[in-house]
């Protein structure tokens, strides 16, 4: 076997070094990615824990059931209907503003920021449907001429607002400035169940 010349040996060594360097760079890069991934996982975990802690501290599970929360909301709505919106600096609001039923189409003013769904009821208490909404949305719901009242739930499913549609005689009421009529049947992301 013939001996390699010093120049060839040097070139081979350089190639090996380069390959080793590439491999080393790959290892370092992979470790960095892994480390970054681990770090992100850790961040996510800590964030999740923080959210859980916040929820457990600020939004404890209410000792009242859904029906009882509804009773409380209806009581506040009746108080609002009597012209009372709290006293001694506390503001208790349960009524949705400017809810209009025009030719079977229900038009909302912008909903509260924590609104997540709207449930429509007939006068006899039968549920007409539930629509998913976002906070601040002003949904327009067509084909609900029987809607007697609506209830807005928040992201935790708790009832937070009641609304009584004002039936609009043709041409009498001006449409609320906050509610824009849309041509589509439901607001973006709305889902009837």
């Amino acid at each position, binding site marked *: 076997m013939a001996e390699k010349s010093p120049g060839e040996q040097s070139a081979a060594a350089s190639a090996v070094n380069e390959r080793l360097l590439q491999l080393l760079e790959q290892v370092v890069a992979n470790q960095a990615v892994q480390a970054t991934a681990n770090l992100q996982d850790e961040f996510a975990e800590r964030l999740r824990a923080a959210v859980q802690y916040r929820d457990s501290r600020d939004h404890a599970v209410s000792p009242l059931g859904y029906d009882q929360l509804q009773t409380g909301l*209806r*009581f506040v709505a009746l108080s609002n209907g009597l012209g009372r919106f709290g006293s001694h600096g506390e503001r208790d609001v349960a009524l949705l503003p400017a809810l209009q039923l025009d030719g079977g189409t229900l038009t909302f003013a912008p909903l509260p920021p924590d609104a997540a769904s709207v449930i429509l009821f007939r006068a006899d208490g039968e549920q007409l449907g539930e629509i998913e909404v976002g906070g601040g949305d002003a949904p327009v719901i067509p084909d609900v001429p029987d809607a007697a009242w609506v209830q807005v739930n928040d992201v935790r499913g708790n009832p937070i607002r009641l609304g009584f549609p004002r039936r609009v005689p043709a041409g009498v009421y001006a449409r609320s400035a906050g509610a824009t009529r849309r041509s589509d049947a439901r607001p973006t992301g709305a889902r009837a169940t």
Partner: protein
Amino acid sequence: MFRMLARLIADPDLTHPAAVPDASTLFATHPIQLSRWLEEAWAGGGIANWPAFGTQNVALGDPAAAARLRLPNGLRDDGLRSGVTSPVGGPVIPPVFGPPPALGDGLMLAWDHLIYAFLLESTGIVEIFAEVLRRYVVGETLDAPSVDTLVWARASEELFFRDPPLFHIGGLTSQLRPNARTIRRNAYWRMFGSDLPHPLPGATAGEQPWKRDAGAVANTRFLELWTELLRQVWMGIENDRNQVGANPTDPSYVAYLCQTLGEMLRLRRRGGMLAREEFSAVTALSWFHLTVESDTAVVRDLRATAGGTGNPADRLAAIGQRVGISPARHARELFELADLVSPVLWFIELNQFSTPAQAETLFRIFGVLNPVVARTMIRIVDLWQSATGERIKDIGIRGAQPAATGRAAQPTRLPAGPAPAPVQAAPSPNGSSPAVRT
């Protein structure tokens, strides 16, 4: 209703809870417009128009009562419409006669429960303002009024001390019952088995025709049951955080009390009885309540101001001094109670606290994010105890330790109340008594 109208003038869609009711514009409105607005408010149906949330609406005795007694649509919304509206540029004085819709039209408004009128009239507010009005119109024993007060005085006299326009819903006085104050006392007696703490002006001692006319049907058990409800609710509030040991709270008993109270009140309303009387009473009292709720022109002219955060009772006491009549000692509590008890009694009448689960909302407060109902009840208990002298909270302390005292937290029987007084039928003024066959 007039306090609601003052709010609607400032906030026509009820979208701004912090809005300050505009009493000045309301008091500047012509009384015929206000009278017609009441007609429109009645036609809205009030509590009878509220959805009963899946159950039958049993308010007003018969939900059709409001619809059957209202002015026909063609009259009410055309030739007899109020014109009390929301002008484009905001309220102005004197108010303009606006095109439809009237303020509140189509909104889910309700008028107060009769208890609101009873508690407010117990302060003596009607007697004080009747004397103020009398002095303004017959002499000059008070300082000269401003034109705003003059307009208020004219509207007050027209709306509440004179027969209303014929065929209007507030027109209760007639040849058969000529005195509006007696009509209100009759309604209080029938619904709550209670009388106002002050005598009827001009009546001879012991003369109480409103009781004689009512017969033996007055709800004389009402106050006993109501006080028992407050005691049981307080017991529930006291023991809400009780995690160890026996808890004397009984939601079933609280619900039973609510159910019994609701049935008792609805019994007096069968077929829509007392609906007009209630509407007339709460509108009259809300007018005078609105008058002292802020430093209105009348309050200023009578030098009875109490500042932006002042109490109506303080203004009433100062006005009473001007005319030599003292309001009830507990007027401060009564003013606040009137606002708080009204929605609670409506809810009781609507059967919304008649199941144990629903009744729990009256006292569950620990861990609840916004316990509005329980918070309301705590305030009512405090004020009721202070206003009446009934020891409501003591029974809660005893009830929490039934074994130590040997006394149960709940009584064996519901409080019976005083025995009904024997009825002495009024003799017929015509003809003669039927002959007694012997």
